[in-house]
């Protein structure tokens, strides 16, 4: 019996690919490698360009806040802080809105309305950043400065809400449009939040809607209210989507250029007062500083861009890991 089994080895299959297939595979692989070379060349170029800068300025590149290329004083401390500030404030604005809206679409909205809401969300993701920038600049800023004034008046004792101006000045005596409150990190963050919202919300919504229906029904059958059902089933299930979607949007927010550039009044200062006029981000600095840059300064700008890229890369990678851990969309079999 065993002898028979030993003889009964599986026949080795050799599938000879046809010429057509070999051409196809090699052609496609060639294009893939070309893209790999192009894309990694960008990363390598940025990395190599930043070497001379880092050698020249050393660690002071990260601790110096002034950007005075003419005096050879160059550092990204201020813009780095500004970038993080704008992104974090935008996150604070968009995060609650995103979670609540995603819940509305997945669990509160009537089923007939759902496709329409999803479509509007996708459309919002496609609205150009410059349009949101314009809207915040023209429509929102006059109101946002009032809010900023109010907050700084009553909560100015908290350092981040302090504005270096006389807040007790009668309102009709404030210069028109509150210049001390215009172009602040807070107002730029409103535009960035509008960019973050659709990205984060659509990731969250997708994860929320794939929460197991059986468990949801079980919770409802046990007498749970809708919120109790969401709290016990949907939110624990969607935790990876909440964190991952938020971080994905945060990666986008860090690199957001044009809406920030339109709104802020640029200033290279270490500043934690988010309501006060004057801030800068890495991307806004690149967009304004490239024109009159000498080769050395261009390399400094490229280094700043590389640092920005590394930041978004780190955020995106963590987000991708978190989202992938939550669900496995890659394997869909029949």
């Amino acid at each position, binding site marked *: 019996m065993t002898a028979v089994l030993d003889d009964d080895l599986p026949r080795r299959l050799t599938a000879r690919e046809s010429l057509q297939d070999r*051409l196809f595979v090699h052609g496609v692989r060639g294009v893939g490698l070309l893209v*790999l070379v192009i894309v990694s060349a960008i990363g390598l170029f940025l990395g190599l360009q930043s070497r001379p800068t880092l050698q020249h300025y050393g660690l002071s590149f990260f601790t110096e806040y002034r950007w005075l290329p003419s005096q050879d004083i160059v550092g990204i401390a201020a813009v780095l802080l500004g970038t993080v500030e704008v992104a974090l404030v935008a996150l604070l604005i968009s995060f609650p809105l995103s979670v609540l809206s995603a819940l509305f679409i997945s669990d509160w909205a009537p089923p007939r309305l759902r496709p329409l809401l999803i479509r509007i969300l*996708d459309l919002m993701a496609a609205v150009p950043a410059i349009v949101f920038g314009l809207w915040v600049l023209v429509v929102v800023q006059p109101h946002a400065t009032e809010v900023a004034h109010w907050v700084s008046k009553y909560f100015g004792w908290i350092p981040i809400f302090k504005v270096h101006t006389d807040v007790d000045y009668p309102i009709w005596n404030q210069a028109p449009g509150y210049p001390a409150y215009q172009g602040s990190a807070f107002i730029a963050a409103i535009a960035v939040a509008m960019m973050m919202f659709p990205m984060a919300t659509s990731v969250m919504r997708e994860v929320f809607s794939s929460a197991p229906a059986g468990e949801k029904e079980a919770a409802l059958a046990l007498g749970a209210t809708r919120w109790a059902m969401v709290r016990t089933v949907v939110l624990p299930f969607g935790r990876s989507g909440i964190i991952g979607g938020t971080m994905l949007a945060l990666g986008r927010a860090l690199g957001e250029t044009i809406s920030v550039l339109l709104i802020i009044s640029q200033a290279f200062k270490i500043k934690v007062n988010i309501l006060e006029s004057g801030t800068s981000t890495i991307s806004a600095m690149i967009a304004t500083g490239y024109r009159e840059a000498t080769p050395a300064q261009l390399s400094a700008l490229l280094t700043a861009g590389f640092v920005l890229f590394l930041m978004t890369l780190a955020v995106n990678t963590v987000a991708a890991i978190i989202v992938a851990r939550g669900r496995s969309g890659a394997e869909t079999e029949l």
Partner: protein
Amino acid sequence: MTATVLERTEQKTETVRRTAPRTREDVLTLVGAGVGSLATTWLVYTKLLPLHGTIGFVVLGCAVFVAYYAGMTALTRPWPVVADRIVTALVVAAPTLVGLALASTIISTAIKGAPALFHGNFFTDDMAGVRPGDEFSMGGALHAMAGTLIEVAIAVSIAMPLGVITAIYMSEVGGRLARLVRVVIEAMTALPSIVAGLFIYAVLIVNLHFPSSGFAAALALAVMGLPIMARASDVVLRVVPGGLREASYALGAGKLQTVWHVVLPTARPGLATALILGIARMVGETSPLILTSGASTFMNADPFHNPMNSLPLFIYSAVGSGDPRFAQRGFAAATVLLTLVLALFLLARLVVRTKKAP
């Protein structure tokens, strides 16, 4: 079989009781809280406290409404219902707020741009020789529209084939190298668009002395869009069921035949949507253009020589000029840009709808 027939006849004879989730008391509570909060807010705002401004009124009104609603519910219902209603109020308020913001964005842009838009020469003229304060009957944004179309067309014709073929390589050919490509592509989707622009500026314009032109801008857009398109296509191709591929191989089809006749047709609606949304993203991207294309005021259809303008850049320079009339032209251009994005979006929906029907 008999069971289903039985169920059907039962359903016909039995009138289904509507388990309405809302009783009259619920509705009255809602209305009462709404009216009460409005009255209270008005009283507090105009008579009691020295406050003013619309935002404060709305914020206070919403807070008072939630408090009243919770309080009135708590009179007759247990705590879980109160919590449910507070959360429901918030969950409804958040998308309403964002929806209003989105509507305000679109409407205010269109209204501010309307005066310039209603002159036909906005679509047929360029800004050559037009001073910022000139009437709307002079000058237009034809050069910017043409520039956007040319730049995006070049960028798409570079990025789309490369992106789709790379996606086919990653998902259909596979192997260790393909995984490396996927990792690198995913990493490069994090590349901020301004850095892509700076890269092209540093390499092409500074080092290779290529002039600021539409082609440089198109290359910057392509560099930015290539990883995005490759990744989006990869995601779409990966959800094509593996069983379909196996069935195709089992029938004796080769790799190329399987990809061409099975995988791509199955993925076509998703692929089209992903690519069109990628194009929409390119159309609206501004920051790489600031660095690479220069900004002409005249019509220039040659992407290789002389600066070229584009809609986002036109908007940016118009609004940044500080001249109110020129800024209105910027808003008109923003309306055109929004319409373009919307048209691409509708196209994507249309492709999905027509191709889904078998």
